[in-house]
Every structure is written in structure tokens, then in C-alpha cells.
């Protein structure tokens, strides 16, 4: 077995003690500009606060699929639409891939086809246009019960379309 000498181990500790804060700074800077780098020795911060007094703010994401026959909409949660993706990765996946309208517009034809096929599969009938919808739900606690008092659509972007 290869063993490290005590001197090397001490040097390793000094390196790690310098490296860890430095990489954390880099993670912070790169994270602000684009997204969290990997691999990095960090745990999730969950720094956001959604509760202010008795008012609660929740971000809701859905995929709205238009049914070809009657143009009615059916909504699917990301968990339903991207059923293969683990729940722990879904919110991040949606944020990275669907939150930017520019990125959605840049999807190539094979990606749009994939969305259509998934829409067809979930509806059991041909899908028409597919939209990504980001809504903000505000809730208040009345008599001990949580009630939704307003829902605002923050973003609605067409992902896949069928020509009329």
C-alpha cells in the first residue's frame, strides 16, 4: 500500500485549508454568472425565503399541452411530464432548461419533436402547441388554513408548435 509521509500529509492539509475557501469563492462567483460549478465541495444553501409574516409565495411550474382536436389545454407538472427525471433534479432541470425564453427558442427540431411525442404519449391523442408556464402563487393563512388568494402568470413560453 502506498503511504503518505507525515510531511506530505501536513502539506496536504495546508493545501486543503487554502483550497476549500478559494473554491467556495469561485463557486459563488461562477454561480452568480451562470450556474453552480461541479465538482465542488459545497452543500446546497437553500437561502431563499418565501414566508413573510402570514403571506406565502410559491413558484409553480407546469407544462400546458393543447389537445389537437378541440384546442383545450391540459396541464402537467414537471414530475408528470419529465417522469424519468428524479424529483431531486426536476426543479433545477426546469430552471436551467425552460426558464429562459431565449433558450427555449433555441431548441432544435429534434427537441421540439421530443416534446410533441411526450405530449402525445401523455394525452393519448395528438398534441398541438405545448407551453411552459411559470406562475407565482400567493397564499395566506386564514383561520389556521392556507388559502390561495392570487395566482400570477410570470412567464408563458411556447415550446413546441403546430402550424395552423
Amino acid at each position: 500500500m502506498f503511504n503518505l509521509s507525515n510531511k506530505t500529509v501536513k502539506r496536504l492539509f495546508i493545501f486543503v485549508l487554502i483550497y476549500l475557501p478559494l473554491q467556495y469563492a469561485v463557486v459563488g462567483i461562477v454561480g452568480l454568472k451562470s450556474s453552480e460549478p461541479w465538482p465542488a465541495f459545497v452543500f446546497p444553501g437553500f437561502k431563499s425565503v418565501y414566508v413573510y409574516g402570514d403571506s406565502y409565495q410559491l413558484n409553480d411550474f407546469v407544462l400546458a399541452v393543447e389537445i389537437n382536436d378541440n384546442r383545450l389545454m391540459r396541464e402537467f407538472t414537471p414530475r408528470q411530464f419529465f417522469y424519468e427525471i428524479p424529483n431531486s433534479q426536476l426543479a433545477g432541470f426546469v430552471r436551467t432548461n425552460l426558464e429562459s425564453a431565449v433558450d427555449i427558442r433555441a431548441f432544435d427540431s429534434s427537441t421540439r419533436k421530443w416534446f410533441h411525442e411526450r405530449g402525445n404519449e401523455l394525452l393519448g391523442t395528438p398534441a398541438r402547441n405545448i407551453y411552459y408556464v411559470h406562475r407565482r402563487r400567493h397564499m395566506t393563512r386564514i383561520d389556521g388554513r392556507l388559502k390561495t388568494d392570487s395566482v400570477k402568470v410570470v412567464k408563458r413560453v411556447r415550446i413546441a408548435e403546430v402550424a395552423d
Partner: protein
Amino acid sequence: MGNNWFDRWIFESYQPTIQGLALFRIFASLLILFFLMPDAAYYTDLASFPDDFFTPPPGPMMFFDSFPPAWFFYSIHVLLALSWICVLIGFKTQKASIAAAIFMLILLGFIFSIGKVNHQMLIILLPLLMAFSSWGGAYSFDAGLSGKKTKANGWTLTLLALFIGFMMFTAGFPKILGGWLNGDTFATQGHLLNQYFIRGRTELLSGYMVSMNIPLIWGILDWGTVFFETGFLIAVLRAGWTRLFVCFAVFFHFSTMLTLNIAFLVNFPAYAAFLPWGKIHESIASLVDLNEKPYTIPLVFGGALFCLFGIIKIIDKMYLLTPTREPSFDELALISGAVLIVLTLGLKKAIGLFSSVRTQSV
């Protein structure tokens, strides 16, 4: 703090025994092989996603422009499993441990290139550090073939503690900046509502917690979380404090599993490194005649764990007790088991302290 203190901290904080490390090696390998390997069923899905979904995080995965084919994932998966099997039986343990870390790094790198990084570095770091601990120095093919006695390297545990402490700090520090310590913003409650209403995590105690509206408790949870996560970095300075914070970590993950339905089992092999494995070995050794059959201990210990983990896995796969997947039955059983172990150790410690105080006073 002088150089001596630094040396003592590195080399004397932990004094593991070679047999204790060997038991930990068997435990960690089996735990990972049974429960913490990436889900192989996901590889075909990943490989068939459109290239636009390949959004790697900043880092080495940016050198690729699409997901690799499924056969690549399966090949690395097999190599990862083989590496952990070698670690389990102690065959070329050091190289196998390093290989396990590298293969896990590759697999997770591609899995996280879907646009979301999960924070699972400890499962990569653990075999990488323990490769230098001599955890293959007993109850292993390596020990049998070389016939040499090796020295246990406790500094690997100090380094592991440092990494855990720092990573915990990186979870706690942004919370302070984000306003978790403000009296009128209940961040834990907000995350609970988000998980419950948006992500559909509605199992176990989450419904009860959603209906609970006691500001004092929510405030305490916010403050407690920040104290625990940032305090871990200071706890790293002493082995006793680290062990105490590892116990807090077990309760922390248990409570997030019950309320937010987020089970972070992936950290538990690293936490388990701080169990008193030397004492566990002594307890088992007192029951068997080591001179007669020296390999009874690893066979009994490994066999018992194999059966226990096998039963948990079978129940999990059959969905006998929990029809939903989050948290899964294996996560529920193992994290609850960890809580029981911590409670038992705490009780033993308390009884020991109480009897020593009584003896002194008499």
C-alpha cells in the same frame, strides 16, 4: 496556534484501529453497493434525451456536448460495482477505492449534466480519503497476501471531518445572508410549503407540519439549522465535537426526511466513519475465539449486514410498506436505524458519565 497543535490535530484527533477500519470498510461497501449506486434504469433515459437537455455545470463536463450512449453508462456502472466489491473483500483495496471514487465522479458528472447538480461529493470523497487510511489492512485479501502489519492512518478521518465541516458551513453561511435569522421570515416553513404544494412531497409528517402555525417553532428551526450548519466547521477542531455534530446531522436528516420528505442517505457512509468502530470490533471479538478462526468476525459482521440490507432492499423493491417513492422504504429504514444507533450511543455515554460522576462523589 502553534505547529504542535496543528500536528496533534492532524495525527492524534482520531486513533482508529486497523480492525475497526476494516469493519467500517465492509459496512460502507455494502451500504453503497446495496443502496447508493446510481439508478441504472435511468441510463437509457438519459442517453435518449435530446442534446438540448445536456446542460452541464461549469466544469469538466463542458468538454462534452451530449449525453454518452447507454452502453457507456452501463460499462462505468459495472466498473464502479466491481471496484466496490474489491473494496468489500479487500482486494487491491487502495487502488479499488480510488477507482470507485473516479467512476462515481464520471457517472455523477453526466447525471448532473441534465441541468441540476445534486450535492453528493461525500460519496466520492469517502473512498478517495479512506484509500489512504489502511482500511484494507485487516480482514482482507491484501492483508492475507502480504502478511505485513499496517498502521491505521487517523489523519484521513480528520481530513474527512474538515471536508464535511466546511461543506456544512457552505450550506449555513448563505442562509445567514438570505435572511434566515430575521425574526419575521420563516424560511424553513417556506421551503416546507414549496416542497409540499409544488413538488408534491406530502408524505409522513409533512401535512401536519404544513398545518402547524407556531411562529416560535419555525423561528427556532431556522436558527437551529443555521447554528448546526455553520457550527460544524468549528466542531472539526476536536474529535468529540465532530462526533456530536455528526449525531446532530443524523437527527437533522431524519427531521428533513419526516417533514420535507428529503432523505439525504448519500451522506451517511461518511458520517458512519465516525462511529466507534474499534469498540464495535472489540465487542464482536469478545464473542469469538480469534485464534481459532480469525475470519469469523468479518464473515459474521458482513454476513449479518448483507442479510439485513438484502431484506430492506427486497421490501423496498416490493413496495410493501411505502407505496410512494419519496422517501423510499430503504431511506426510511436506514435513516431511522441511524437515529436508533445515535440514541443508543448517547444513552451509553450518558450512563458512563453518570456512573463516573457518582464514583467520584462517593
